[in-house]
């Protein structure tokens, strides 16, 4: 991580102001991408700056650097970095190898076709050359999606989604997330039923008990505003007068007669 940390401050300065668009800085930024790949670090802003410079200076476009940027973006799922990168790579380049393959892998991950992803990756392992920790980053994403979806999941299904892990490998991931196995081969993720419950939204308007008229009639009594900032007050014992605050006029209720 040493090189990355060293470069980060320097690159940060480059990215401020107009220097960001200076093609002479491209070499530094490209080296920075390489460093991120080697040291399993990540800097989205710098990588987007590289893609932008490629857009303005097509002669300097480098497929290998672009491929690395895309793969690094995948390691940051579920953030939408990958989509951001796609917006800055023109169609012609998107169809070149290996960018086309990487886009396909990205699509598989975004559509949660994890088993298919590992298979496709197997057939294209050379893509990953130099990207330290790529597979584990993808597994982190997969565990994130599993964590928000499942309460109990089949052991074999989880192992398959994570890339056909062996039992011992699976145990490592389970302990990372505090997931426990039971005897029936199910893995307990978390108690989803605590947080995912049907909701019923009901409007509640509280009336102060002093609001109701006494036998002898009463003057104006004001009650605290309800959640819609309307004040209800009582005038002359029987009539109900609604005092509207300006806020209600701006919430789109039909114009009341003034």
């Amino acid at each position, binding site marked *: 991580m040493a090189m990355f940390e060293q470069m980060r401050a320097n690159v940060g300065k480059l990215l401020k102001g107009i220097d960001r668009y200076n093609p002479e800085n491209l070499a530094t930024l490209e080296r920075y991408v390489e460093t991120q790949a080697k040291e399993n670090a990540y800097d989205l802003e710098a990588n987007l700056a590289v893609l932008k410079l490629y*857009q*303005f*200076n*097509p002669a300097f476009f480098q497929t290998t650097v672009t491929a690395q940027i895309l793969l690094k973006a995948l390691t940051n799922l*579920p*953030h*939408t970095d990958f*989509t951001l990168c*796609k*917006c800055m790579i*023109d*169609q012609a380049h998107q169809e070149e190898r290996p960018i086309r393959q990487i886009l396909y892998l990205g*699509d598989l991950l*975004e*559509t*949660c*076709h994890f088993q298919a992803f590992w298979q496709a990756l197997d057939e294209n392992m050379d893509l990953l050359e130099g990207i330290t920790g790529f597979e584990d980053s993808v597994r982190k994403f997969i565990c994130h*999606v*599993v964590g*928000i*979806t*499942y*309460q*109990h*999941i*089949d052991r074999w299904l989880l192992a398959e989604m994570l890339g056909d892990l062996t039992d011992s490998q699976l145990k490592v991931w389970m302990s990372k997330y505090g997931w426990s196995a039971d005897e029936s081969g*199910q893995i307990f993720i978390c108690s*989803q*039923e605590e947080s*995912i*419950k*049907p*909701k*019923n*939204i*009901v*409007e509640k*308007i509280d009336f102060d008990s002093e609001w109701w008229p006494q036998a002898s009639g009463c003057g104006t009594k004001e009650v605290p505003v*309800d959640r*819609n900032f*309307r004040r209800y007050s009582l005038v002359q014992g029987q*009539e*109900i*007068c*609604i005092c*509207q605050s*300006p806020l209600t*006029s*701006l*919430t*789109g*209720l*039909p*114009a*009341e*007669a*003034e």
Partner: protein
Amino acid sequence: MITSPRLLMIPMLTQATMICTQETQSRIWLTNVSMNSRPISWTKLTERFFKNTPWPEAEAIAPQVGNDAVFLILYKELYYRHIYAKVSGGPSLEQRFESYYNYCNLFNYILNADGPAPLELPNQWLWDIIDEFIYQINKQNEQMHALLAIALTMYPMRIDESIHLQLQEKYGDKMLHMQKGDPQVYEELFSYSCPKFLSPVVPNYDNVHPNYHKEPFLQQLKVFSDEVQQQAQLSTIRSFLKLYTTMPVAKLAGFLDLTEQEFRIQLLVFKHKMKNLVWTSGVSALDGEFQSASEVDFYIDKDMIHIADTKVARRYGDFFIRQIHKFEEFNRTLKKMGQRP
């Protein structure tokens, strides 16, 4: 603060009629008429004298109103609003700038006053000012509605009633098509509302093919269409989820005509796509945590799916307030009738 429902008509206007001479429509004569005449409203005067042409410029009438700064600001608000709405050709670039500066002046006047500004304006006018401001400065109202239609189809949630009604009017039909998964409607609305995308480089003029100018747009359209495609099945799945509470996964898959494996995958996609980055704290607007605002949620437990829906009960407060207002108005009218000889 701004509460009273009295019409703001500076005394001169309530007692006057604005008359246009035959020579120039921009000349105004203020004459005093009897105090018993009803105040003449802006809309009626516009109908009569300024149907498609601008009102006189503020500078022209300023002397008549004693150069009152606040009056002129409010006058200009109406003046520019009229130009945007009715004058053929719309506002010139300079008029757009002037209108914006006028809003700045108005808001500064209100915000800079010590204590509430000494101004009483009808609620309707206030609403119109804010509405017009957003319309003018965004100038892009229609595009915003189209984008909202897309967003709401892909991620249904409760929004402001009045906006929802407008959306239904304009795009109700298209939203139905999008829910069914029609990619063409998505592309149509995207094309309509997206900004003009430019190529970052000059083309090679010796070797330009016919559709070159469209490429930047097509590239962005493709990224959008890819995203739509990834979420293509979610609308249907959502509508099925709303129908049930607990069920075996395999059974619900059957209803949707999917294999159990493919259905589980789509459920993962649903969860993944419904979680978005929401700013909670931090200096950068790009920080935040992943949150779901989906009304329908679920979890899978072994081979069962448990669905949680959000139901909104009918709101009764608004209904009663509206009826109470109606009756109030009714009572007032009755009282007035009773007073006539």
